[in-house]
């Protein structure tokens, strides 16, 4: 029996860990006793980047990763992180299954990450202390953002001052007014109890946090064709299950937030929101494979 060390960044009851339970079950159904999945939760094997590097170096056999991390190896992957490019989750999934998705999978494989399927961690939403529906009031606000050129540029375009603060200190920084707003997925909004300090969520869904299910190349190379097929198909099924779990988790999370007094606001003046995102597309176009590619994805149904 081959034991896979699988790294999960979250607790055993979170989608990030449960997806591997499911994949393990499917694999065991088809190839009884061949593989055992040792899922190590709570980021005990390191943060996302460390885990991905460990996969290349042979100590981790499988994990999930966000697209932003993967773009350190394959910059083209950032196309799935472009703001206001995707209408909804279905649009994103369709894009990952298109030719663009296949191309990025091939490039990731060259870098040592075998990606049977993409996943959707849920959309990032704007979190503020006072209700905001159009981008205007962001001007001059201090905003906690991820330290990535794409994110920094987006919020600068709306006139906000992007500030890098570690996620565990974000609550404190919002409470004391060092920053006035931030953006995050719904699940994380609630798991960090941020509704206590930024009770207004504008459902901008500006960036769909996309990710991948990957197996490590050094491990993959030891498999025969049948095993590769079984693991690959299990991962595809697992990815669909993960997306379902995330949706359900978001609903539970938002119910909790609502109970605690959080308010969800629908964005208005979508033109102004998208106008702030367009320059990001332009500046990222060369990196992600050209404006044609962005347009092709936009027209995908």
């Amino acid at each position, binding site marked *: 029996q081959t034991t896979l*060390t699988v790294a999960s960044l979250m607790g055993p009851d979170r989608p990030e860990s449960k997806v591997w339970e499911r994949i393990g079950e499917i694999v065991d159904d088809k190839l009884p006793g061949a593989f055992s999945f040792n899922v190590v939760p709570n980021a005990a*094997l*390191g943060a996302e980047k*460390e885990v991905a590097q460990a996969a290349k170096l042979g100590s981790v056999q499988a994990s999930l990763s966000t697209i932003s991390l993967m773009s350190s190896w394959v910059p083209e992957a950032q196309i799935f992180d472009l703001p206001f490019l995707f209408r909804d989750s279905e649009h994103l999934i369709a894009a990952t299954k298109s030719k663009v998705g296949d191309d990025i999978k091939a490039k990731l494989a060259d870098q040592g990450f075998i990606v049977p399927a993409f996943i959707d961690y849920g959309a990032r939403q704007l979190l503020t202390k006072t209700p905001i529906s159009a981008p205007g009031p962001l001007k001059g606000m201090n905003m906690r953002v991820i330290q990535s050129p794409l994110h920094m540029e987006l919020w600068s375009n709306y006139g906000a001052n992007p500030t890098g603060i570690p996620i565990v200190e974000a609550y404190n920084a919002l409470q*004391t007014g060092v920053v006035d707003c931030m953006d995050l997925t719904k699940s994380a909004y609630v798991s960090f109890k941020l509704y206590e300090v930024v009770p207004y969520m504008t459902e901008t869904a500006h960036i769909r946090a996309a990710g991948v299910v990957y197996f490590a190349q050094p491990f993959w190379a030891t498999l025969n064709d049948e095993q590769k097929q079984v693991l690959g198909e299990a991962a595809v099924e697992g990815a669909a299950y993960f997306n379902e779990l995330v949706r359900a988790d978001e609903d539970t999370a938002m119910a909790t937030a609502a109970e605690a007094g959080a308010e969800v606001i629908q964005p208005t003046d979508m033109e102004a929101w998208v106008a702030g995102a367009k320059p990001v597309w332009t500046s990222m176009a060369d990196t992600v494979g050209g404006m044609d590619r962005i347009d092709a994805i936009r027209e995908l149904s």
Partner: protein
Amino acid sequence: MSLTLDQGVPEGLAWRAGRVLDVASAWLSAIAALVLAGLMVLVVSGFVLRYAFSSSIMGAEAAGIWLNVAIVGLGAPLALNSTLAMRLDVFQRLLPRHVRLGADMVAEAMTLLSGLVIAHGSYTVTRIVGGTNAGLGLPEWIPFALFALGGGLVVLFTVLKLIADGRIATLVVALALAAFAFWLAGSGIRIETGLPKSLILGLIVVVGLVVAAPLPHAFIAGAFLVVPFGSPLPEPAILNSAVSGIMKFLLLAIPFFLLTGTLLARSGVATRLIEFAGALVGHMRGGLAQTTLLTNVFFSGASGSSIASAAFGAATFQPELERHGYPPAKAGAIIAATSVLDNVIPPSIAFLILAMATNLSVGQLLVGGLWGGLVMAVALFVVIRLTCRDAPVSAPAAGGTRWRLALRAVPAFGLGLIVVFGIRLGLVTTTEAAAMAALYTFGLSVWFGVGARGLVAAFRQSATEAAAIALLIASAAPFAFLLAVDDISGLIGDLAAFFGQGPVAALLVSAIILFLVGLVLDIGAAILLFGPLLLPIATAAGIDPIVFGVIMVVNLMIGGLTPPFGVLVFVVGGVTGVPTAHLFRAVLPHVAGLTVALFAISLFALVWAAIA
């Protein structure tokens, strides 16, 4: 045979090796000092840009992290011969002479093997890892190359030191052992034992401790030696784990806290704290001991390192205490025990490491630490009251004098305020606060006339100490990886369940584990390995995670005073020359007092858990 061989070194060769070692050390520490200065400027400018210009340097965080890895690479060989080499020499000194020689050979072989693995493994990572850092636009292999350099230098320095000491036989045998082990692990030979790999690693580390190998190198050599036993961590993955372990922005605060402590002493501001403390408590029974304690409380508010505080106290208070009739061991014990406070009262390196390992909020931990530290200070006050019967050093100071001395100590208090409120209010990140504190004490040092030579020396010393601490953090990471793969936290959970459900069982189990761990491991390594394992058990039992973090740090800090591995006693012994065995005995009443304090804090945690 080797005894005679070991004496037969050509004197000229030994002398030349010694010279090369001195010159190389001087250069390395100068470069490391320069990198530390650059790091300070980088972090402070990040803060200035944010508030003055609402902008930031792209990739500043990554650049800072890489510079810190450079400091570790440069400082790793220097740490080998410092007080922070983390060699546990208690068992080794008990060994008969010829056995001791064998132990020395094994210890040096472990260091050589570790250096070899660091160099070769990191180099392998640079070839495989790939990827570009988004912030810097530079390849991600660069920090691994810096670390590889450190490994090579460790090998070089170990060889030179052995030649300089004339221990040629030790060198030859150690090199042969290291080469053999390196070949064996790479040969593909596999030994099946059925034991958890983390357990095998733990046993190898124990061997390393017994023969007095430097703890970080015992960890790295051990992680590598588990490979033939079927470790899930191949050589390059060991190095990925180790280097990733120190690539955290939060850890940049450590060199700054060390620098602050060193400069505080050099600038003479620490002396003002002593005068003020003396005016407040000098007239009491055991006045000088109480002054030492109160000065430590003040000093703790500005410095984050108990080691810095112990070194400062040993240099400053030991002669004074002895002059006032304290037996040397008792004086040293008071200094070692009071220096515990520095890592509990904020700022604190221990809490930084804990926050990093467990993702708890640093801001909240620091507040918890303040309360914990004050409880400990009260306990130490009582112990000193009961054990010191010497006459007061001074008549009660007049109110006016106290105010004047308080005013003179303001520069030091200002520092504590910057750090604690800056972090607590979230105005600055912990790392920025630490960098600003370092810059502030740098300014004070210049203001109070510390010369260029003294300033450079402070940077050199801090860079070397920071490298030693970071190297330990790095080397413990592969061990933590194996503990996680083997699901040791599940095992500990079962153990806790065996003692019963609820907060009392959880506290009891963690107290036992931390006590045992604290006997042999350094505080930093213990927090890294056991913080993430114990915290979930405590929180599941309803204990507040922050209070539990405080309990854990207090518990381990007490371990810094107990044999066989009591780092604070080692430092005081190293500076004062008092035998550590005497210090360990003299510090017992203080350990008892601190244990009572720990008990009180635990009781608070239980009451808190019951009402929350």
